[in-house]
């Protein structure tokens, strides 16, 4: 296991929103096709059925809830980041 990360790494802020339709299309391009979408008062919950993963999308927040599958998590993270600006 690598050394713990340095204490004072830069902490970038994110801005923007993740558009649901475009995000679903992006997921599909990456082979994630079995997605159940549920509407909530503030946005949507995406259930990635084959991956047993939930993504809660709201206007100003995204929450990715998954098993400890680092590769999948990193992929989903990068797909979400495509729609956001980093500061």
């Amino acid at each position, binding site marked *: 296991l690598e050394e713990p990360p340095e*204490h004072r790494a830069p*902490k970038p802020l*994110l801005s923007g929103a993740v558009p649901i339709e475009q995000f679903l299309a992006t997921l599909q391009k990456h082979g994630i096709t079995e997605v159940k979408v549920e509407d909530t008062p503030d946005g949507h919950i995406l259930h990635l059925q084959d991956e047993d993963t939930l993504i809660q999308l709201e206007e100003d927040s*995204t929450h990715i*809830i998954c098993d400890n599958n680092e590769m999948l998590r990193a992929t989903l993270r990068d797909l979400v980041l495509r729609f956001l600006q980093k500061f």
Partner: protein
Amino acid sequence: LIMKDNSLRLVAPEQALKELGLSEHQLRFTCRVQIQNPQSEQDTLNTIYSHLKSVLKEHSIQHLPDGTVMVESILIKVSAAAEEPSTKTLLVSWSYQDEELGGYLCTLLRKGLPQSTG
């Protein structure tokens, strides 16, 4: 670094977002990590606390009264499956700002806990 009214200024990221009229987008991750540990939920959490204290000497680690261990802003909770109490599910939750440490903690915890509590 922002450019406004033809001048360049160095400001904190939060301030820059505000001045540009943008709102922050919170990106959060919660990972489920399953480990085998015969201890009670409470003792498992104590073991995690001691383990992380010994590994992450440079980081702030707290044991909160609500049954959560907090490393910087990363939250760790423990729950046991009713039908198989020695299988514990750890929920590790962090924001994008703590991305590196969050990923590291998941990998570390997946390797299991030391047998004796430190």
